């Protein structure tokens, strides 16, 4: 059974052509931000596209392999294809830039951010995808972002709620304050 698995894996690999990851982007992001980054920045699996695990080429069904083949021919932007080994950010790059452009950007990974659509913020944490790439944070994880930026964005977002909370706590404490003072007048009386 294991052998059969291997055989299909070999077949898949040859059918889909040689797997290509683009470590230049990962390396650049890592150097610029000083954060450790892995293949999960753009790929489904954190160890990259090669292998037998979920999200790696070896695990794909025939249907998914066909999609992968199509995605690999998407040299121009706007193909609308979703490659099964890429995550949302990887697919955004594929759709917005096309493979030719990505190939070209490999030489100057610093300009990837400005090539992405300016307002695009896939995880909705208020930090645009391109900026997240520069910061070495994950564009698909709303909890991952430069702490200060996240804090500022969320503070603006929840400002109303926080103001309510402050007001409620202040009122409650004022009540407690008076309750304790009242209690102290009562204890004084007993004496």
């Amino acid at each position, binding site marked *: 059974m294991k052998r059969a698995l291997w055989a299909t894996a070999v077949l898949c690999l040859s059918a889909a052509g040689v797997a290509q990851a683009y470590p230049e982007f990962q390396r650049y992001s890592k150097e610029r931000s000083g*954060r*450790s*980054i*892995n293949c*999960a920045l753009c790929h489904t699996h*954190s*160890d990259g596209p090669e292998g037998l*695990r979920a999200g790696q080429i070896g695990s794909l069904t025939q249907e998914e392999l066909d999609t992968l083949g199509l995605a690999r021919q998407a040299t121009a932007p706007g193909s609308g294809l979703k490659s099964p080994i890429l995550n949302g950010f990887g697919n955004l790059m594929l759709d917005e830039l096309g493979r030719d452009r990505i190939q070209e950007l490999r030489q100057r990974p610093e300009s990837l951010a400005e090539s992405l659509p300016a307002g695009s913020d896939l995880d909705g944490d208020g930090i645009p995808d391109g900026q997240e790439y520069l910061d*070495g*944070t*994950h564009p698909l*994880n709303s*909890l*991952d*972002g*430069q*702490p200060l930026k*996240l*804090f500022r964005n*969320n*503070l603006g977002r*929840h400002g109303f*709620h*926080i103001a309510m*909370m*402050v007001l409620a*706590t*202040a009122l*409650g*404490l004022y009540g*407690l*304050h008076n309750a*304790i*003072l009242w*209690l*102290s007048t009562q*204890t004084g009386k007993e*004496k």
Partner: protein
Amino acid sequence: MRPDWLRRGLDYLSERLPVQKMSFESLVTKKVVPVHRMSWAYYMGGLALLFFLIQLVTGVFLLFYYQPTVSDAHASVEYITYYVNSGFLVRNLHTWSSSCMILCLMVHALTTFAMKAFARPREVTWLTGSMLLALTFAFGFTGYLLPWHQIAVNATKVVLQSIEEAGRYLPGALSGLPTYVKEIIQGEASVGQATLSRFYALHVVILPLLFFGVLGLHLLCVQLHGMSQGTDTPARRSEKFFPIFMLKDFWLWGVAFLVVFVLAYCLPFESFYPYPLFEPYDSLGSTPDGIKPEWYFYFIYYPLELLPFWVVMLGQTLGGAALFMTPWIFKNTSRKVLGIIATLVSAYLIVITIFGHDIYEMFKGGGA
């Protein structure tokens, strides 16, 4: 006719636990808090208590959804974070408040030390306090593993491995002991389901029960003995514990709660770490960069990285012993010397916690 030793024993105990002071009068009406330069330190214990209460409430909340199995733990934490109403807030409160609690306890311990509040008759207070500190670290260590992400499992492995390492420095028959201890904690050959179950039981049932017991004794002692003088000459001013000090304490609680609330609401604790560390643990994949324990273990972690193992182990054992023996070791030390020691220890803690990584890079940087 009581034998002499029994009488002395009872005298000793009644001085440490003066239960005759358990009256409304001495606990409420007459109790005062000295006012002096270090008065702010009297609030630290209460603050830690607030954070413990937050931990208790949010912890119970998390229990509703968390699943302690290797296949579901990470998924259930994700479910809490992304799908449950205000689940993110609850979980982030738990994380932030745990850090705040440990910070408060550290400051509490150091100031108590510097003010010589452990001196007779408050030995029991100090001992129970040290136990609470140790229990809190145990809480931190066991809780860290529960989300079952890369950093959690790998950091736990690192710590457990370093226990085993101690075996090398033990003589003969004893050398197998650390491995034995490690296997008891781990429950199986490597960190796996058995470990998760154990840590879960510890974090959720055993440690809280212990904590309640020790905390009860600690608070009882604090109440019976009242606030320690804290300075060499008795403070010229004092304020009533009830209601004045209590009021201030509650206002401080309010402010502290709001600070933690805002932090928990707006700043995911995970954003301080790179994202690969928060992917589910994968025993068959590679380990991501930057595995580290939580910041409050840096004071022991970075020395482990930089110094020979036996030096650190020796230092740790001595430090731990000194912590528990403080009331007797420093019995006759002046507050001035205690203050200097406390300042040095705080300086060490601050420097290693903030600059630990830079120091590490300086000595071990480059790798090759």
